């Protein structure tokens, strides 16, 4: 469904060029919960920003169902964006709008009539367990609740893919668990493909069927979660796994 080919992303910094991604190849299939794990600064967010069209690749291509991102512009690009939902680490909710208005927002941008948008938004809020917070403002919610609103908002236009950048790294372990369960339900019940970026191996173990390990701008390992974690090939994967064992050890 998503095909990344020879993706390279270089930023021009004052101190010179920084390569955040180098020759990344990846294929994400429909129905996957695809984990992308790596240390801080490895290039995870950059990859997600490329997938969500916020950054354009320096080299290489990304395509969704065979449609190359770089061939799209204007209205087509907007339509592509509506096929994907994005969940950010920092929630990025509109602070001056209520929870309900936040979830309705993508629909109203798309010109969906107000009544219909409200109905759909209420459905989604019910799904994430926040229908009683519809009239609250984001500032009145806890981190976990905010992330649920963000997830509901990302789902409002019925996207085929949900892209999540460290959706749980600002949350405690119990809240993390419930948000991950929600994402799992979304994948199984709504058949939404999920890409989830994280630095915690536990997140991958909990819900991802596939995983790619990224280190210093390059993909070092990729495959089904079971296989990769049962027989880690790279040092970085071993390191990430080792750390996890120590934590629970």
């Amino acid at each position: 469904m998503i095909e990344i080919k020879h993706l390279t992303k270089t930023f021009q910094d004052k101190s010179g060029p920084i390569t955040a991604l180098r020759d990344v190849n990846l294929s994400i299939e429909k129905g996957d919960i695809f984990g992308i794990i790596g240390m801080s600064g490895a290039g995870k967010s950059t990859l997600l920003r490329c997938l969500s069209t916020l950054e354009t690749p320096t080299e290489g291509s990304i395509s969704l169902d065979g449609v190359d991102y770089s061939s799209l512009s204007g209205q087509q690009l907007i339509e592509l964006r509506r096929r994907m939902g994005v969940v950010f680490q920092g929630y990025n909710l509109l602070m001056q709008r209520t929870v309900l208005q936040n979830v309705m927002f993508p629909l109203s941008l798309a010109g969906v009539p107000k009544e219909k948008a409200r109905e759909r938004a209420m459905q989604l809020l019910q799904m994430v367990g926040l229908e009683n917070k519809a009239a609250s403002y984001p500032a009145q919610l806890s981190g976990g609740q905010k992330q649920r609103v963000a997830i509901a908002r990302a789902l409002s236009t019925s996207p085929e893919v949900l892209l999540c950048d460290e959706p749980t790294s600002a949350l405690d372990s119990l809240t993390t668990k419930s948000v991950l369960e929600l994402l799992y339900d979304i994948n199984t019940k709504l058949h939404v493909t999920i890409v989830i970026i994280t630095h915690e191996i536990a997140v991958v173990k909990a819900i991802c069927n596939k995983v790619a390990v990224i280190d210093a701008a390059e993909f070092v390992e990729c495959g089904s979660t079971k296989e990769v974690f049962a027989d880690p090939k790279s040092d970085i994967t071993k390191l990430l796994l080792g750390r996890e064992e120590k934590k629970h050890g």
Partner: protein
Amino acid sequence: MVELLIKGTGETLYMVALSTVFAYLLGVPAGVLLSVTSKGGIVENHSFNWAFGWVINILRSLPFIILMVFISPFTRLIVGKAIGPTAACVALIVAAAPFVARLVESSLAEIDAGVIDAAKCMGATNRQIILRVMLPEAIPSLVRGLSITTITLIGYSAMAGAIGGGGLGDIAIRYGHHRYDTRTMLITIVLLVIIVCVIQVTFDKLAYRVDKSNR
């Protein structure tokens, strides 16, 4: 005397209100332009931003009195005369619009870039990002800027009064300064202080009430 003061207060309020409205009609689009063309903005454009920024800086650095004299031919062209409260408004608008542009720019700069990223990901057009994300999210800060603008304009309007603009400033100069009528001068000062305080308190309350991000 009382009639004179009422008339002066009315003229001051008229000048401030009229010039605030027009300063915002010009200043908000200008501030939005500065913001969206700045580095990391949704239509980043370095040379435009630089050139436009300079125009605004030049307008802002002209002392108000000089500006008022300088543009009086232009004022005459627009309102038919160069003295009186309405004529003073022209200079007040020219002085305040670039000021408002910078205030609006800084209000918009406070918005979290992530929120704009999120809107882009939802398929928002640039127009929608400006009108439905940036400006609404900046409202509390814009209201605080509005109070700064009105209060600054009260000060300017008093100056405008001194050179034929009317209003309380005019009275303070004519009676207080030229005729040594200290009582009248003090009364006009007290009136100006009251107006400033009322505006400040009102806008502070308003800014707090409209801000949904702090409770």
